[in-house]
């Protein structure tokens, strides 16, 4: 570790000087973190500390009353559960479909392969607004508006294209010889997929899972249209509602924001390296 840094420095050009790096980092961290900090500070302030001019930086009487209100006097816990059910199911289904599709694209040559691959990418480029109306009507015909399954299906298709794309590049990186050896040993195609390909591409699988979970957890506009019943509403809708339901009680809104952000931020920080690696690998192989 030390040695590599040493050599890279001696090879490297002068670069930016320390003060400007330091200053740049301070600005960057401040810009990125400040709204998050302000959100958490606001969530533990009492009412008259929130509504004062000039604003108070630090809460003098930190309180959990806002969290109490969110967790026990609102529908947020129910929406939290809905969000978890829908995100987990959509992520799981998308992963299963993506694993098979990516395996097909990465390991077989068949007629129209690049055409089908392009089709999947186009799915990622479609403007949401252009498909929202027909999708709504389709779901209504199928009787899936205001059900878990409706949102699960929709979320599955919005995460599927990029999942297939990322996994294909992971699968391609696995040496072919390993699979050929398994074929000689008499393994079936599906057996190879589960015994060799998947274990070897675990980082890619994690990247896809984290990507799909974050996307579905954060999704707002489809949920707004397809889940109008409080039995299936998800957290983002709950949060949007919260601002009007309590006549914009900002302390409670900020507490609800924290409840929604913390799980996703933790998930991201734990799997950060895989996630960023998977994303940029897909991009640089494009």
């Amino acid at each position, binding site marked *: 570790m030390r040695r590599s840094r040493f050599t890279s420095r001696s*090879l490297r050009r002068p670069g*930016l000087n320390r003060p400007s790096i330091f200053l740049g980092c301070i600005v960057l*961290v401040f810009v990125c973190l400040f709204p998050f900090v302000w959100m958490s500070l606001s969530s533990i302030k009492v009412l008259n500390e929130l509504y004062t001019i000039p604003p108070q930086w630090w809460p003098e009487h930190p309180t959990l009353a806002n969290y109490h209100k969110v967790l026990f006097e609102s529908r947020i816990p129910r929406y939290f559960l809905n969000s978890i059910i829908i995100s987990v199911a959509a992520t799981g289904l998308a992963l299963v479909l993506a694993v098979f599709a990516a395996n*097909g694209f990465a390991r077989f040559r068949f007629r129209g392969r690049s055409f089908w691959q392009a089709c999947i990418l186009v799915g990622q480029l479609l*403007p949401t*607004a252009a498909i929202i109306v027909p999708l709504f009507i389709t779901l209504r015909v199928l009787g899936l508006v205001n059900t878990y399954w409706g949102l699960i299906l929709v979320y599955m298709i919005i995460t599927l294209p990029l999942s297939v794309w990322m996994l294909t590049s992971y699968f391609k990186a696995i040496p072919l010889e390993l699979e050929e050896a398994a074929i000689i040993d008499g393994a079936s195609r599906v057996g190879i997929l589960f015994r060799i390909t998947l274990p070897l591409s675990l980082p890619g699988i994690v990247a896809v899972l984290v990507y799909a979970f974050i996307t579905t957890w954060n999704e707002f*506009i489809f949920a707004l249209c397809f889940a109008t019943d409080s039995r299936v509403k998800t957290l983002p809708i709950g949060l*949007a509602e919260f601002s009007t339901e309590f006549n914009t009680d900002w302390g409670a809104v900020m507490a609800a924001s924290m409840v*929604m952000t913390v799980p996703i*931020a933790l998930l991201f920080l734990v799997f950060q390296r895989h996630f960023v690696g998977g994303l940029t690998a897909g991009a640089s192989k494009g």
Partner: protein
Amino acid sequence: MKSNTGLVFALPALIVLFMLIAYPVFYTGWLSVTNDQGQFTGLQNFSAVLRPRVTTQALWNTLWWVAGSIFFQVLLGVTAAILLNQNFMGRALVRSIALIPWVIPGIVAATTWAWMFHTEFGIINYMLTSTGALDEPVGWLTRSNTVMPAMIAINVWKLFPFVAIMVLAGLQTIPQELYEAARMDGASYWEEVRHVMLPQIRPVITAVTLLLVIWALNAITIIYAITRGGPANRTVITPIQIFRLAFENVEFNQAAALSVMFFAVVMLIVLAYIKAFASQPGEVQ
């Protein structure tokens, strides 16, 4: 391994995508030329949706929204990436923190910034007035000339980390020899940025910009959650207009007509963009 096994593997995903993307796209086309009884009406929906003044206004707003967002996202993203490409202690930590805006839910970003932009109790007005940058508090989200820039600022904050991380990955694949050659020629750091880094990351920027265009056109969340298109339609962008037509006015056919036009314009932009940049040398395939 030549067989159709591969297609069989890919088939479930393709069928699902076809059912829930291709079919709706064609169905929109059908809806746009019929009325709510399902009778063919030609281009009536199109003329009905083009008539109100809000449609043109939405188009201009969309252009501002997309252009403003992307310009600053790329500018800040590339700057942050060049900074993070330096070797310094704590770089990994700064990089993780820089990704937070991108990971937190759009709706959370919207509500938090709405609170920060609050006219009376907002921290932004306080910071600006107490340092003397402003004489009196500004109603950022209620004044017609500040509301769109405020929305763009939030969108830029949300997505520039994505640009930064992609460009950073591009910067780290630049071969060491290029820097060494530049150093032989006596290049200063800024000349290196200009003549080595920027040309090398151009393909990444091209690809990322295309994604940003699509995302800006999909990003209804921030605007809808904060202003719902107001005040006085100053922040209505076309996707929000489609949404309103369909789910507030329940004019599915007019919404479909607008979707068709929106879809056509977006696809034209995407194709023109790919054609203009994909043929250039050094492009990532």
